[in-house]
């Protein structure tokens, strides 16, 4: 099945990706970002906060945004 993955880290990756059936939010996050880092990110499914064990469905929109994004000066 396909889900829209938006990773707002770095370049801001946003594209449809193929994932296996019954994949949870936690599993996708571990694959794409890395295990144990979920505390540093805001994870939304269809723009809503969800539990980590929520199973993804076809067409879901998952966005991952770092809680700390360093600004700069001009």
């Amino acid at each position, binding site marked *: 099945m396909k889900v829209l993955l938006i990773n707002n*880290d770095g370049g801001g990756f946003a594209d449809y990706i193929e994932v296996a059936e019954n994949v949870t939010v936690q599993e996708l996050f571990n694959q794409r970002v890395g295990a144990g880092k979920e505390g540093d990110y805001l994870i939304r499914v269809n723009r809503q906060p969800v539990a980590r064990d929520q199973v993804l469905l076809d067409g879901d929109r998952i966005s991952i*945004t770092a809680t700390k994004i360093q600004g700069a000066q001009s």
Partner: protein
Amino acid sequence: MSLAQQHRKRMRDRFRLASEIRQSLVKATSCASSDRIDTDAWASIERLQRLRDKANSRGWLLAEQRLRDRLRRGLDSFCRGAMRVADNLTGPLQPCSVLSVHEIMRELTALNDEFKDVNWDRKRHTFSVTTDDIVLDEVCLGPFEICLDLRYLCQSHPYRVVAKDPHPASTSDSTTHPHVQSEHLCEGDGYAAIKRSIADGRFYDFFMIVRQVLETYNPGNAYVTLDDWHGVECLACGDTVDRSNCDNCNRCEYSVCHDCRQVCPGCDETHCNDCMACCHGCDDDYCKDCLTCCSGCGESFCDHCLTEENCDDCLDIEASTEAEAESPESSVHALRMGQIGISP
């Protein structure tokens, strides 16, 4: 107005806003589209052609040569662009990548859950959200309004970050956040993701990323660091001044502003008023480390006014005392004191 009516009105407003956003996105996308002939380049070619004809008719050979070169380069560039457009047209039809009104409405609904205040100004064509109070390293900067201007979506920075209850740096009223100056956020690591989210019309992500940048402090790259946010207090006059207009006393290390600092002529270092004292010999001010106590009188003197740990006055007294001790005339004659001398 009943709850149902309020809901209907809210949804109607949201639909209008979503439609306007979509129109702005379509406009912005067509600005950046690669499927269009560059008409500006063609106009430039026509102008060069006219100039070349004029140069030809007047016999300006050098000008004609230069214009011919420019015309050739312009035509090459135009042809490459036209070929690119032709290639794009022969490929499969690309679906419109701009979000549907329905999707944009979902974005707006989600923003209402994420931010306490979401506003649409129809007259100004702006769409804004307001953050909670931003507190960085225990410095409260107040809430910020992130205001997106829908008319300028195809420009590099189509939004402003406005402090709603400003707590600016004491040294710069326009710096309301370590990374915001004159309502302009310096995006740093968020630059690419912010650009991408605006280009894709993902406003939910855009506002989230900007908020996270505002909630992050990067002391190594700030307009004003939070350590200096409230300025530095001068020990001498008590004024709050910018760190760059302040020095630390070389002796006690307290901060003194440039108006109050004193430079010791002995060591050439900056000192505060409390760490300076007057030399009893020459009356010049020196730091206390450059003054030495005279071993005779105990007063403080600079190196120039001391000789072998004695001031000039003490040396004089010592010299005259020694002279008197050595001279026989200096002894008191009993007869002159009204007494009778008795021989042994």
